[in-house]
């Protein structure tokens, strides 16, 4: 039913689930940040795994090889380019979150989400 080939994709989704669980259910600000990072990286992993071709080689052209031949039996290079960008975006979000968390700690004195609730209604 679930073949061995699908296992990496399922595990990436499990990782995403762990990340989303941490974002939604954890009370500590830092744990929320870690959950966010895990969720983003899980999606990046999934995206890279989509490009896999069974028995494929890395998409690096070597001397004497033709581009058309390489394209036939290499893994898909496009998702790799995509996740490079996505990793940079994740880095920017993480840096911003950490900076915000530091400032929140300064103002509220705690990282506990249940006490950071000045805005209501």
């Amino acid at each position, binding site marked *: 039913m679930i073949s061995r080939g699908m296992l990496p994709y399922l595990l990436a989704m499990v990782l995403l689930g762990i990340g989303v669980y941490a*974002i939604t259910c954890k009370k500590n600000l830092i744990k929320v940040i870690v959950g966010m990072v895990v*969720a983003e990286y899980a*999606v990046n992993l999934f995206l890279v795994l*989509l490009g896999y071709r069974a028995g494929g080689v890395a998409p690096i052209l070597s001397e004497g090889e033709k581009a058309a031949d390489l394209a036939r039996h290499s893994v898909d290079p*496009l998702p790799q380019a995509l996740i490079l960008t996505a990793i940079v975006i994740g880095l920017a*979000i993480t840096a911003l979150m950490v900076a915000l968390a530091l400032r929140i700690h300064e103002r509220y004195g705690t990282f506990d989400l249940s006490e950071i*609730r000045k805005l209501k209604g």
Partner: protein
Amino acid sequence: MTDLFPLVVAVPLGAAYLLPLLGRMRPRWPLDLLAILVVTFVAAFTLAGLMQGTTGTLWLGGWRPGTERSIGINMCVDGLTRLMLVTIAMVSLAGVLFSISYMNRFTGKGLYYSLFFLMLAGMNGVVLTGDLFNLFVFLEVAGIASYALVAFGCESEELEASFKYLVLGGLGSTFILLGVALCYNQAGTLNMAQVAQFVAAKGINPVLTLAAGLFFAGFGLKAAMVPFHAWLPDAHPSAPAPISAMLSGVLIKALGVYALCRVFFNVLGLGGGIFPLVFMALGALSMVVGVLLAVGQWDFKRLLAYHSISQMGYVVLAVGLAGELMAKAAVEPAAAAALQATAALALFGGLFHLFNHAAFKSLLFLCAGATEYATGTRELKRLGGLTRRMPVTSACCRIAALSISGVPPFNGFWSKLVIVLALARAGHYWLAGMTVAVSFLTLLSFVKVQRYVLQGELRPELAGVREAPAWMCAAMIILALVCVGAGVLCPLIQADLLAPARDALLNGLAYARCVLGG
């Protein structure tokens, strides 16, 4: 002319990097001058593009795909793009003009402008691009800039609101990226036009339906539809006033509603029968929940934020109605012409309301900002009698309040009327009635605002209140003129601005022909 369109992304991006350097120099005026020049350039360029009716595609780097799957990125200008660009330019111009005086009370004005122009460049990129992953990247650029801008004042409430916004926005972006990955896996390409060709040829399969669901969740979160609205009532009031205007005025539209329309109408072909109904259901829910929560608010900006949710519900409802009718027309060829006509009407109403909401909601937030600048408070109970002291602000506030309540002859009336008519023609009488009821409640809510803020006796602690500075008044007057002009000159706008946008969406999957054929 089409080839020059990347400049509306490149020029603000370049300015975003130069402005912090200028911000550290004394005197201050080169900073403001450069900001005004850049935003005027963007506004003039988009207006010129609108006048000429430029349509076309350009491929970055000249990487045209030919017949195989494209690996280049294209930027596509069609009617919907022109409408969104004009909306963004209009609100950004007002925002920059307002910021010149308002942001003098904050430190780091150069950094503020830098983030503002990053957000502008990101939004322009979102509406211009024709590639799914490029859409995600520009969405993130604009989104991250907006997270930082919400926290700009660094008070505790602003930080908390920004963190909440960040976490929810990041979650939405994760879903969008997952949707893009699934689309790529199925269609083998990221180019929107080629995915549309794939969907037209092969139809929707369960993976694409899952991708459509993920897109709906992600973009719906950016558009603050119920149940994804939890971040908006905290984030929009906490931001500085011009940023609240930008966020409510264009960000939720460019990143949320525009992306939803583009992906669902032109790329995924409505994603199967269920999605238009979900649009309509959540649009109606947003309308009602937004206005009910807004009526009880006593904080000026928080009230406006809840009204944003409600008005976005109008647009999503209209768009969903159009989608449902188009799906029905595909199934029943006999009644197709009438259904298409009603769908066109619904889309016209939705897009017109999108443009109108950008105008009057930004104006309302700017007025709230001017009031806060002059009096120092946002609580309705502590304001009062400002009409005599702040004539320009109160006149603009009145115009905006009348527009949002749907009073003729201002612009809000026409767009709401068209939506109600389209709902009635399609046979959804309950929804049409609900729309009218929500409009009435909006009117009630703004009568309350008028009574508490503008009319009544001037409180003793507000005795020293003066009118807002000239730049802020100029920004508000520009938007007020747009509100009045769009209402009175409705037929003019209809032909140039809205009809091409509506046709671009009505084309549906034939978008591919427009992009790749030309």
